[in-house]
């Protein structure tokens, strides 16, 4: 399997392994996919319910 990692990632991984700590480094291709998945949701339009809720909070605060 092709495991693409940046040079820094490789160095960090080596250092981590030498210290006996968990090797938590994630290959670049997987990190990229995770970010894409996250970005996909972040780029969606906010649902109306949520905007209404925020407006209600704002109005309630102003009317206090």
């Amino acid at each position, binding site marked *: 399997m092709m495991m693409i990692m940046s040079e820094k990632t490789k160095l960090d991984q080596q250092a981590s392994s030498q210290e006996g700590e968990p090797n938590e480094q994630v290959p670049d291709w997987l990190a990229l996919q*995770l970010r894409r998945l*996250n970005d996909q949701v972040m780029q969606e339009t906010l649902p109306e319910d*949520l905007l209404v809720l925020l407006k209600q909070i704002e109005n309630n605060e102003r009317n206090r």
Partner: protein
Amino acid sequence: MGATDRFLDQVTALLPALRAFGRSLCGDPARADDLVQDTVLKAWTNREQFQSGSNLKAWLFTILRNCYYSELRHRKFEIEDPEGICAGQMAVAPDHDAKLQLRDLNLALQQLPTDQREALILVCATGLSYEEAADVCQVAVGTIKSRIARARDRLVDLLGEDAADEAGSLAILDTRTAPTKQGFRSSGVS
């Protein structure tokens, strides 16, 4: 602009990130939005407890996470999603390979234990530091690292050996056809 308006503006700006984290936790878009609504209400109610200048994003993520686990405790039986029907809804209609890959990744993510999934998402997708993720999950930094390692190994198993090659070829396509986002191509976990 008053402190109240500023607080609300900051919360509003973080809503997309909250929705993404909520969706990765529960795998269900509608339920995730309910979690975000609960989070906003709780954050507003407890806004005095938030210390100005500290990390609002981590604070909101912590609230959302608490809402999620609280809801799980109150549900006597968690509704299972063995076919990945809810999880599959995360991606829009698969009209090209990249979307198919994201759908597969999302289905695989939902097969991870929640503690591993949240650690991986917080650090690798959301961009929190290990320390911030440890604060959100209320565990030690080493625990976060261990969970990420296990999540990574399981995901690679689930996605299969071709996933890296396919992702790699799509990444090359991206650089030819789309503008590069700053920092987008780094692993974000170093």
